[in-house]
């Protein structure tokens, strides 16, 4: 029975599917860089470092076998972005897909926005299962018929054909970002969207590609004075005039586009005072927010920094209403993590359908489910070892120090190359998509 995405700990998660190559030799281009369900949850899109987008579609449930939950199968694959070269700066522009965002469905076709560091593209994904046959001037293979041989006219008719899914680029929004795009967000008005880079946020109209409005600009006149960058931005799910953006200093600013054309002055500033007992050289780096997501009901927002997830009430700026530790055992390892650059990893986070549970990734292919309503949390692992169909995932525990109990893994044994940065939760059901380096795991709620 598909609930509205209920509690994370009543729910037992079991393996459903894994996508991607099995061998350990990971091709750089196959590294998954973004995962996103569409608004109905029927489609699941992934973007990778090679600039490709792969869309999976949920098969309609088999009513005769209720325990066999519907599977996601490849629906469409296309090359969204190609590598480019900036001749002015002599630098490569990566084709890696940074973000994918679906547009709400308006007609038979599906639309999504995909972006790399510099360019955003609007893709139309449409199905074709009929084709016209019986043209007068053309043969079936496309060759033109000699007009002299035509003696009678006929009306072409549509005949069924094998389903073909076509992806075509409908708009290209280019040349508006000097710095690297980190976020895109579709507005609730379904007409505009924002794109954010390190220093600026632009507002676009989906129909217009040669112009965008700059709504936030934090570039200082003197670049030497730069101490803070924009790390993520998102539109409010219901209020089309409201958006938030997070910074590398751990602050979130909420802006109202009705206040002024340039939203440099925030309406609200969300910032938690630093805990002096935890201060270290890395305090600022670990406070940098890597992701910000509004709750579905629009009353809360969630931020992810290096060690924790915080839930903020939009009406309270002084501190978050809830804070969850993701992997506090890493606090004593920050120097090593600074050395190997892991401290700069940008983890994402997501809400479940009814905003009662949040999920985020960690290292060693672990991911965390944080149940807000029951104040409980669980650590699960996406691994090849638990890949039997409907195998229930066992909770994992990390031993921070002292005696390691059975089934616990010690901090020093964690594999920091196996990181789960991108996760997504089906908007209505308890189905989650978890991306390891080059594999996509799909887990579902155990159905008895």
């Amino acid at each position, binding site marked *: 029975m598909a609930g509205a995405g209920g509690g994370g700990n009543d729910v037992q998660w079991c393996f459903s599917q894994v996508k991607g190559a099995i061998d350990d030799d990971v091709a750089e281009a196959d590294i998954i860089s973004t995962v996103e369900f569409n608004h109905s949850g029927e489609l699941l899109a992934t973007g990778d470092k090679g600039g490709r987008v792969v869309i999976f579609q949920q098969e309609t449930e088999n009513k005769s076998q209720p325990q066999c939950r519907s599977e996601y199968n490849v629906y469409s694959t296309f090359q969204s972005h190609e590598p480019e070269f900036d001749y002015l700066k002599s630098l490569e522009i990566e084709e890696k897909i940074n973000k994918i965002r679906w547009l709400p469905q308006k007609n038979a076709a599906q639309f999504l926005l995909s972006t790399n560091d510099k360019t955003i593209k609007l893709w139309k994904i449409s199905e074709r299962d009929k084709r016209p046959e019986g043209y007068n001037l053309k043969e079936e293979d496309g060759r033109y018929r000699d007009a002299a041989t035509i003696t009678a006219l006929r009306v072409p008719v549509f005949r069924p054909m094998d389903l073909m899914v076509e992806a075509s680029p409908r708009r290209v929004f280019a040349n508006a970002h000097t710095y690297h795009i980190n976020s895109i967000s579709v507005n609730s008005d379904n007409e505009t969207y924002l794109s954010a880079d*390190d220093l600026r946020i632009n507002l676009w109209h989906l129909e217009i590609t040669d112009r965008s409005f700059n709504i936030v600009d934090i570039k200082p006149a003197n670049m030497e004075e730069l101490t803070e960058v924009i790390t993520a931005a998102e539109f409010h799910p219901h209020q089309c005039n409201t958006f938030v953006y997070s910074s590398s200093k751990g602050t979130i600013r909420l802006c109202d586009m009705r206040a002024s054309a340039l939203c440099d002055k925030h309406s609200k500033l969300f910032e938690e005072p630093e805990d002096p007992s935890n201060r*270290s050289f890395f305090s600022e780096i670990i406070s940098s927010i890597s992701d910000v997501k509004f709750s579905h009901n629009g009353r809360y927002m969630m931020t992810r920094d290096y060690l924790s997830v915080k839930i903020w009430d939009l009406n309270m700026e002084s501190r978050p209403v809830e804070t969850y530790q993701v992997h506090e055992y890493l606090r004593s390892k920050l120097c090593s993590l600074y*050395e190997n650059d892991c401290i700069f990893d940008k983890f994402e986070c997501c809400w479940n359908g009814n905003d009662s549970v949040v999920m985020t990734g960690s290292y060693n292919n672990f991911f965390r489910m944080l149940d807000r309503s029951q104040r409980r949390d669980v650590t699960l692992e996406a691994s090849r070892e638990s890949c039997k169909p409907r195998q229930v995932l066992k909770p994992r525990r990390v031993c921070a120090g002292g005696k390691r109990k059975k089934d616990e893994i010690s901090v020093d044994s964690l594999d920091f190359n196996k990181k789960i940065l991108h996760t997504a939760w089906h908007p209505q059901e308890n189905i989650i998509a978890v991306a390891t380096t080059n594999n996509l795991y799909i887990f579902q709620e155990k159905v008895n």
Partner: protein
Amino acid sequence: MLGKGLKRKLEPEEEDGVMKMEASSSSPSSSSSSSSSPSSSSSSSSSSSSSSSSSSSSSSSSSSTGGYWFQRQTVLNLSLLKLHTRPGPGEPDLARTVLITNTLRHIQHELRGEECVPSPQTPSSPASKDSFSTALADIEALCPTVGITALFSTSDQDVPDITSGTDSDNAGELRDPDAHLSEMHSSMSLSDSALFTSSHAPSRLADFSLDDFLFTEIDNFLFDSSSLSVSMVTDELVKTLAGCGSQSAPPSNNQTFKLDLNELDHIMEVLVGS
């Protein structure tokens, strides 16, 4: 203009925090952090050596300061290394650069703060000589193309009376008319002023400081992603610095720097030993 720096004063009640620093510096690096970038492999040796020496000194309370110092030094070295290593063919990540630069500024702010307040309880032990030249060698090894200290050691800048601004009783030791010595003091302090907290307090530096070096040319390079390479920028800087000196010095080289270091070792021995 510095950002909002996090000032940290090393007071007795802060010892818990210092112990925390020790714990993090002496804990083993994660075994599976096998990063493919060459920068981390070269820096891991320096950080592991510093962490092992910090763990050996962690027993005595007087060296708890040393543990903190070592971690700060490690972070300083790592930050410098990261800023000077080009990550790949693409543009460097601006967010990462800003965070590393802020960390560096924080450490520099701390060092400046310690310079101005000579802490009487910090002993100028013989151990500090070894660690400080090791640290310098580390910086030099990590940034061979830059040669930060080399830049300043050859520039015959008019060093103002560096002892004049200090309140320390030990300042008298520095009133050495030997210009070469004062120059070396200033050059050493530029890279690692923490060691001069007790007896040497060259708080006033000449034309160029670490700040200027890092945050003018390098910043413009990093933030604007201009086509200048690091070596080109530093060549420019060397010419600028050489030109500003009262006597035009030839461009620096590591040879000169190493000679200076040896001489400095000897002088430090003399000063500190007494």
